[in-house]
């Protein structure tokens, strides 16, 4: 899942990046409005965490421009402005959520996850395909009632695939949504992780769930569609 953080206070931005990356999100970050808007127009994000008081371009202006262009990306405003009027203005301009600083990091995570689920039209944090269960909050996967011991990146790939179950997910999408932009990514690294994931999914002799669509990408489903 890919998150964009636009926040001008360096220490907060850095901590948010670290926290989100450690929770399996791919994160881009910008320290001012112009740079943030540049990310918005060029990248694909599941959620944007947006501060309001920003240098160069105000957070509300970014939101206004974004919605004017019909960009449906989910936006969570993260600001110190706490009046009802501030919240109303932000939400009326098209924000999907509003959180006031200072906040609980776990709450921010929960809200981001909720926005991600909303994007993929999933009501619960528990996703299922056949006998595979993926808990996006606990960050655990089970097949046939047995825990699958996945690494953070393996889980992130599985989460992406299960949220888009039945649809082909390209390598580029995986790279963009699972790995940080700045991360070193060899083209076959994704294949390696997919291979490991597939092995763990089918470890106990379960039916194949992760299928390769040659030339397109990967698809998660009970049958190769």
């Amino acid at each position: 899942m890919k998150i964009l953080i636009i926040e001008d206070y360096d220490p907060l931005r850095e901590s948010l990046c670290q926290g989100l990356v450690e929770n399996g999100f791919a994160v881009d970050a910008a320290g001012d409005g112009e740079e943030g808007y540049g990310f918005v127009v060029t990248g694909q994000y599941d959620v944007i965490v947006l501060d309001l008081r920003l240098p160069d371009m105000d957070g509300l202006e970014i939101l206004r421009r974004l919605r004017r262009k019909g960009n449906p990306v989910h936006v969570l405003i993260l600001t110190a402005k706490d009046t009802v009027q501030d919240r109303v203005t932000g939400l009326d301009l098209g924000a999907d959520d509003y959180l006031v600083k200072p906040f609980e990091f776990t709450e921010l995570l929960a809200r981001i996850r909720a926005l991600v689920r909303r994007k993929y039209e999933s009501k619960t944090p528990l996703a299922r395909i056949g006998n595979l269960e993926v808990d996006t909050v606990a960050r655990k996967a089970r097949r046939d009632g047995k825990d699958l011991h996945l690494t953070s990146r393996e889980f992130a790939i599985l989460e992406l695939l299960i949220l888009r179950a039945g649809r082909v997910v390209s390598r580029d999408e995986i790279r963009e949504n699972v790995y940080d932009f700045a991360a070193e990514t060899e083209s076959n690294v994704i294949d390696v992780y997919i291979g490991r994931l597939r092995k763990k999914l089918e470890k106990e002799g379960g039916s194949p769930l992760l299928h390769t669509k040659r030339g397109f990408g990967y698809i998660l489903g009970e049958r190769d569609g």
Partner: protein
Amino acid sequence: MRSLTGTLFRGVTLGASLVLVAVGVVLFFSVRGYVFYQFDNSLLELAQMLALSVEEKSYGLEVDLEEMRIEEMQETKTPAYLQVGSTEGKVFYSSSALDDIPLLRDGEPVSEPVYRWERLSDGTRARSVRYTFTPEEDDEVEPEPPLEAEDVVVVKDAGRGDLVVLQLFRVSSEIDRFLNIFLVMLVLSGAGSLGVLALIMWGVIRKGAQPVTDLAAKIGQICDDDFTFRIKEESVLKELIPVAAGFNQVLERIGDSFSRERSFTSNAAHELRTPLAGLKTSIEVALTRERSEQEYREVLKKTLSIVNQMDNLVTGLLALIRFESGQEVPGRDSISLKGSIEKVLEGYCERIAEKGVDLSVNCSDGQTVVGDRVLFSRVVDELVKNAAYYVDRNGWIRIDSGGGAGRMRLSIANSGSQVNREDAEKVFDRFWRGNGGRGDAGARFGLGLPIVKKFVEAMGANIDVRSEIGGEFVVTLTLPGE
């Protein structure tokens, strides 16, 4: 509590009462004087008429009492009494009611009528006139009346041509009664008039004060934090326009001040919340998993840096508040300009050199200013720090001083200004950060120059700023010299 209507009403009522009392007193005494004047005249006329009843006969002076018992004397409501005698005080005749009353009194003129108040023997009050006259001579020879005649008094030893004194008394009870009734009527009519007048005045004052009441009601409608309300001057009376205009001005000033304070509070809260969020998130994220000692060390370093920033912010805010409330009184030290600047520059030379900045300092030895040493040092430090932070890479910083005649000028300028000419004065607004940038890893809150301005003003100095975007940014201090 005093009210305008009540005060006006009491004032006007008191005034009207005094006028009515004064008019009543004047009227009463005028009428009383006129009545007594008429009474005295009629008394004198009667005395003159009675004097005709005293004649000089061949056998002496004859007082005809029969003639004196005329109708006026018989009048029962205001009976009259008389005394007749000589100018020596010898009484020829006296009514019985006047037994204790002397005919003449010492010091009173004899030649002209004298009016007096007397208390008669029965206690009634009477008005008297004493009239002195020469009796008419009757040359006709008539027989002397018999001694037992009751209606005639003969005074044989009176010389011819002797003056005779006639003192006539008349009971004044009727006049007193009339005057008492008149006084009561006057008081009653005065009180009634005052009552009616008070009612009319109350109505007029209420009506007159209604615009003030309306104005007060309008003012009362203002909500606690709504300072956009204005009284329309065309909706009030001409006399109240200055009040409305003054009120509008006060409201505008309060509104501005309130808005500034609200903005300041909001900004202060924002500026405190953001580093607080950074602090909290850094710690929370650090605690989400086990980390190495080095990682924990990094987190502690980062949080300490945030705490230091918050400390700077709170210290800055407190400094502003102290100087705004006058709690701090700056000292008056003699400060060397060159020494202060060189000392401050030591802290920033590394940063300046790193940016490839050309630094020039044109301050002479012996240039001194008068001010608080600590404040001045903080002012120079903030200005140099500002220049070092905002100067463009490979740009320049210029520090010049000069002046005379008790005033010294110090200017600190840098190239690569990021502030428009129009926005130059805004650098002194609290929490104003140009294009909104926090910069310097979040350490700049937009409080530096506002604090500098407070310090400079507290030292009795002036501060000016001018700026051209992309060009030079110059802050000039004008300070008291020695």
